[in-house]
């Protein structure tokens, strides 16, 4: 019996300044694989399709259940999380139980808007820097026992919780036409986190500072309302809503600041 296999084409690069090249692998097929298990198969037997000895592929991963945000990459050209990207689905088996088309090739490439570290791993620290710039935290007085926090209606929780689900995967930034070196746009994730902390009863004390950080170049005005972010976000954050809410708040803040100066 011949073993059933699938082909995977990986864009590789040995370092930030090295030239990129494409390498194709043929991997034994099993049902219910995801992209990370497929990368694991390559590590078990790192041999390119032409038989040449190769090396395991470098990529970021940790949780393998789409909650740590590590494994974003371009899969068949689309920005997705590798751990929740199911091979059967990528091969055309849309419905559960349908047969995948094993003649199709899967392509993997690093996110295109971030510096490549190696192979599929990229440097996304810019998002963490942006979160610093908007002070995405509640400035508590201290960790000693100060009693219970103020009561909060369930409605506030219902609105904050979805924003707090952001896994910092940077897919919203990758797919945004405005996220580039020219605009310096902070991207949708940072704006959503601004809304999250402005909504917190105690966190709102820094509201004005956050809004000012989002005024001006690279701030919220750069958004061109392409709405790619909300389509691509693996955690379904209400990004366009957050952008329009914060856009309004930034505008009001600017008007206020204009008249008080």
């Amino acid at each position, binding site marked *: 019996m011949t073993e059933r296999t699938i082909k995977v084409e990986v864009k590789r690069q040995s370092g930030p300044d090295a030239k990129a090249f494409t390498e194709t692998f043929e991997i034994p097929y099993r049902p219910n694989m995801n992209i990370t298990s497929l990368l694991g198969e390559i590590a078990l037997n790192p041999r390119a399709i032409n038989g040449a000895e190769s090396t395991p592929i470098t990529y970021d991963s940790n949780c393998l259940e789409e*909650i*740590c945000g590590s494994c974003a990459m371009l899969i068949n050209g689309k920005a997705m999380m590798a751990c929740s990207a199911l091979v059967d689905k990528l091969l055309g088996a849309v419905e559960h139980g349908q047969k995948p088309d094993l003649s199709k090739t899967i392509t993997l490439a690093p996110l295109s808007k971030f510096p490549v570290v190696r192979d599929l791993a990229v440097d996304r620290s810019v998002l*963490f820097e942006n979160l610093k710039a908007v002070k995405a935290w*509640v400035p508590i007085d201290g960790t000693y026992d*100060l009693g219970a926090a103020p009561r909060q209606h369930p409605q506030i929780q219902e609105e904050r*919780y979805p924003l707090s*689900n952001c896994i*910092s995967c940077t897919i919203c930034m990758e797919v945004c036409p405005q996220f580039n070196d020219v605009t310096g746009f902070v991207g949708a994730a940072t704006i959503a986190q601004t809304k999250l902390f402005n909504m917190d009863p105690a*966190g709102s004390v820094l509201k004005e500072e956050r809004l000012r950080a989002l005024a001006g170049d690279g701030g919220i005005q750069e958004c061109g309302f392409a709405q790619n972010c909300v389509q691509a976000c693996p955690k379904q954050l209400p990004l366009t809503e957050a952008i329009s809410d914060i856009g309004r708040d930034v505008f009001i803040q600017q008007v206020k600041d204009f008249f008080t100066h």
Partner: protein
Amino acid sequence: MAAAPRIIVIGGGLAGLSAVIKIAEAGGTVDLFSIVPVKRSHSVCAQGGINAAKDLKGEGDTVLKHFDDTVYGGDFLANQTPVKNMTAQGPAIIDLLDRMGVPFNRTPEGLLDFRRFGGTLYQRTAFAGATTGQQLLYALDEQVRRFESEGKVKKYEGWEFLSAVLDNNGVCRGICAMDLRSMETRTFAADAIIVCTGGNGAIFGKSTNSVVCTGSAQSALYQQGAFYANGEFIQVHPTAIPGEDKLRLMSESARGEGGRVWVPRDKNDKRAAQSIPEPDRWYFLEERYPKYGNLVPRDIATREIFKVVYEDGMGIDGQPMVYLDVSHLAPEKQHKLEGILEIYEKFVGDDPRKVPMKIFPGVHYTMGGLWVDFNQQTNIPGVFAAGEADYSIHGANRLGANSLLSCIYGGFVAGPQAMAYTKNLPAQVGDGGHAAELKRQNEKNSALLNNKGTENPFKIWRELGENMTKHATIVRYNAGLDEADAKIVELLDRYKNVNLSDKSQWANTSFAFTRQLYNMLELARVIVKGARLRDESRGAHYKPEFAERNDERFLKTTKAAFVDGAPSISYEEVDTQYITPRPRVYTSS
């Protein structure tokens, strides 16, 4: 020490970040090392919630009941003093997290909502949907980011701890770490270090843990002289989704909200689960444990599922799987479980709101870990530990939603205690052992890179995982444990022939993994040896040949020391000063 103490925290999960916050708040400065950006630490995976006896449901819950449930749930193996302290601080920790902005679920009056978890009769678990760990980790991460922007914390993300730097007196003077991009190995000075490197599920191949949970740091310290305690106590969670690459957890909260475990009464029943009527379903946990029902502690639920599948041959379609059913729950209840139901839908393809889920137990958590005293200090002066990486609190079995609490509690103790320790630390003599440790690690690196063998490290890892899962999880036999140890020794031998297909010196993940693999092998021996010698059954450790708990011989902490290249086991008395050990039975109603 006159100058401001230099403290290194290793690991940025809940435990590490808690320690960092306490130190920064007290005016200290911290270097924080983590393999992954701390926001991507394994703690994000925690789903169900965090325990604290706030008694907001009018049930008369108290911190003493939480204390008792934890000690009893752990089959009396935990030292009681730290458990008492932790449960007492629980309510204040929840309040603090709430103040940090964690979006905990609320009651209509705006108070914190609580759900019930396993091993208790009280609604004691605060939760943020079904992604509590993610929400808690983010709250702490944000506070640390704030301290970072104030210059009190310096992060070394993408750096891996390799070992402690010890001086001639065996006192810790820093760490040796490797940059996972440039592969540069160097030492960093510190007056005290806090090890918060999490669990070790990777030793079992597939588990519910994240990829970096290898236990490598703990093992390295054990090989440097730290005691590793209660290693044999490994929690196998009753409900995980079997998977190709990992076992994805279905949190206990599914049962906390009313989920039920069952199999068809007739093992040849071929009907679709939804169409099997009530009388034809066997709710075996409810039948056998009328009082706790589906919420018996994990070790018990796991063994029952195991028996139903392997002894009664009642698994669904003859497969090692049983149903976990939330399809009957009201939409509001299902909504509270959104995060985990999505995981099932995403990875399996069925909608658990309509169809019962198929689950099986999976390796989940290590109760064992680095031995620490009640101040979270290991036996190596200046090396502290907290979180899943240490052995305190959970004894022979951890109760659900107690880990997040123990991580934060442990970090909150370790941070200030490490600061206090540095006050009386004598000045370092010479270079404190830095040059020697760097040389030792560089030699290991070059030996590995220049090895000309034929063994693929990922294959060795796979064999290790299969071996450990087969012999050292739910049911253990002495003959099997002997076989397991012999296999690990064989793998250690084959490791000498390991060959790296990638010898480059830039972001070489398989190189880093191969280093971890060695430490996994050494730690696996500790787990197996501890289990082999403990001829009794207690909590998660179950030997049919010795089915009873034996307090006379084994109401003792196992302490493994690395002697002549192998684990040497000794035992230590357990602190039982508050609650007298009693038989652990959940069956009576």
